[in-house]
């Protein structure tokens, strides 16, 4: 049996002010996985990541990284992890090259090897031309990429990315995902938290949704998306009909003079919708999904969990 990349067992955290951030989290991430850890703000994602990277002390429970306990053998477990935190946390007066080389030094990697790795990862993340400028001069996107380069200095087997693309423009975001997908393809296990759910849907194979300190869903992305039974389409039309067609299984709503929203079962065919609209003299000029599928599921699961808890 393969040793999981991460095995979290009944992890609990209660802060000094009494806030119970984690209420017994258990999950397993397999080696080589690209795993999404999603949840609303304050759900406990960052606390969980903080415990895994030893920045937060757990109240109880344990976690193993490739079979190594983060409590019993912290040093060995940390050697296997690379962390890209949510907040910028490097010395802004240092240079990216020095930040990377120093980070390698903290892991006991000699300066010669560290310099080679720093050049490699700064080049791959398109930061080499800024390598010897003060880090405070970098743009927001560059700072985020620098934190990825820094996290790669110990060439971790498990890379944890805590909202790495927050506030980053689409082009840089794509280049970041290209890099992370590349290292995942090369064998590094990746855990990602993000609020851009379309990113998680496109990149991740497995997913856990956490809310109010509990896992509310933990499955494969494919299985989760398959549970979505309703889809909503937004139709741009040339003009609205005098009266909306009445089509069983489809709810039609008018958004404005040229837009109709159609909510329908996934099993329902689109041909009958178009036929009904056509029969009422409606010309559809374009059509799109209203929301990301994962986003719909995410909202439902979180809301459902809260209703049950209430």
């Amino acid at each position, binding site marked *: 049996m393969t040793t999981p990349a991460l095995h979290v067992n009944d992890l609990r955290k209660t802060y000094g002010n009494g806030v119970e951030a984690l209420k017994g989290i258990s999950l397993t991430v397999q080696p080589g996985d690209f795993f999404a850890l999603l949840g609303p703000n304050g759900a406990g994602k960052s606390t969980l990541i903080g415990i895994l990277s030893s920045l937060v002390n757990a109240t109880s429970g344990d976690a193993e990284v490739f079979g190594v306990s983060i409590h019993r053998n912290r040093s060995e477990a940390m050697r296997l992890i690379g962390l890209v935190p949510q907040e910028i*946390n490097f*010395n802004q007066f240092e240079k990216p090259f020095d930040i990377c080389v120093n980070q390698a030094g*903290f892991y006991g990697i000699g300066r010669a090897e560290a310099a080679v790795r720093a050049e490699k990862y700064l080049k791959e993340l398109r930061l080499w031309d800024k390598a010897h400028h003060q880090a405070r001069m970098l743009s927001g996107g560059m700072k985020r990429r620098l934190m990825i380069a820094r996290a790669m200095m*110990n060439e971790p087997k498990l890379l944890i990315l805590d909202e790495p693309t927050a506030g980053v423009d689409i082009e840089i975001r794509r280049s970041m995902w290209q890099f992370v997908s590349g290292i995942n393809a090369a064998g590094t296990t990746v855990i990602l938290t993000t609020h851009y759910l379309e990113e998680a849907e496109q990149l991740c194979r497995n997913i856990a949704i956490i809310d109010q300190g509990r896992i509310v869903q933990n499955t494969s992305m494919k299985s989760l998306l398959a549970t979505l039974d309703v889809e909503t389409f937004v139709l741009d039309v040339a003009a609205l009909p005098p009266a909306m067609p009445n089509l069983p299984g489809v709810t039609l709503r008018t958004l404005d003079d040229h837009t109709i929203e159609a909510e329908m079962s996934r099993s329902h065919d689109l041909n009958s919708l178009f036929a009904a609209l056509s029969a009422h003299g409606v010309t559809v000029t374009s059509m799109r999904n209203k929301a990301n599928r994962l986003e719909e599921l995410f909202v439902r699961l979180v809301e459902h969990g809260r209703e049950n808890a209430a």
Partner: protein
Amino acid sequence: MSASTNLVALGTIVRREIARIMRIWTQTLIPPAITMTLYFVIFGKLIGSRIGEMHGFTYMQYIVPGLVMMSIITNSYGNISSSFFGAKFGRFVEEMLVSPMPNWVILLGYVTGAVTRGVIVGALVLVIALFFTDLHVAHPVTTFLSVVLGATVFSLAGFVNAVFAKKFDDIALVPTFVLTPLTYLGGVFYSVDLLGEPWRSISLVNPILYMVNAFRFGVLGVSDVPIVTAFVVMIVFVVGLSAVALRLLSRGVGLRS
């Protein structure tokens, strides 16, 4: 981590600390040199010439070891408290906390950086002093050991201060209200033998008195306190403060939630 990887990690922290001292040399090296030059001019030359001899030395010669030790103490303390608190404040202390590095390496790295600044500033002040008076080191080994131990004691104290500090004001409080009064009352400018009771006995509970006198014994060969007692006091403080600092790091006080 193995001994060799710990050594690499330690070297990384020390190198980074020294790079910081050199990067902001106008804040770390120049101000103490200017302050001490003023002390030499005012207390040594202008006022000292009217005071006469102390323990067989001119007043200028007598205060030089005290002022050098004062520079070493305040700069060691200031270096580690501002550097480690800065790392906490800027959150880049997390770079070390997420690494496999043991706590003692973090502590030793920062202390070594702070001692280095203390020694550099002490050497600068000593060189400046040579423009005002002649000095011959009486006991080089004692001089060296008193510098290293004195700087280590206050580096450790500065580290503990930085761990507890929540804002920059907190790292200025101790130097202002504790360190400076203790230094001025620690026999830098006078021999405690000149004090009457109870002030002489009260002065003997001031740890800085022992550091200043250990260094003065090393340079001039005279001391107000037994030299063995001075070294025992410094060693006790090093051991005690190291234990406190390591305990704080292990519990993650002020560092881990």
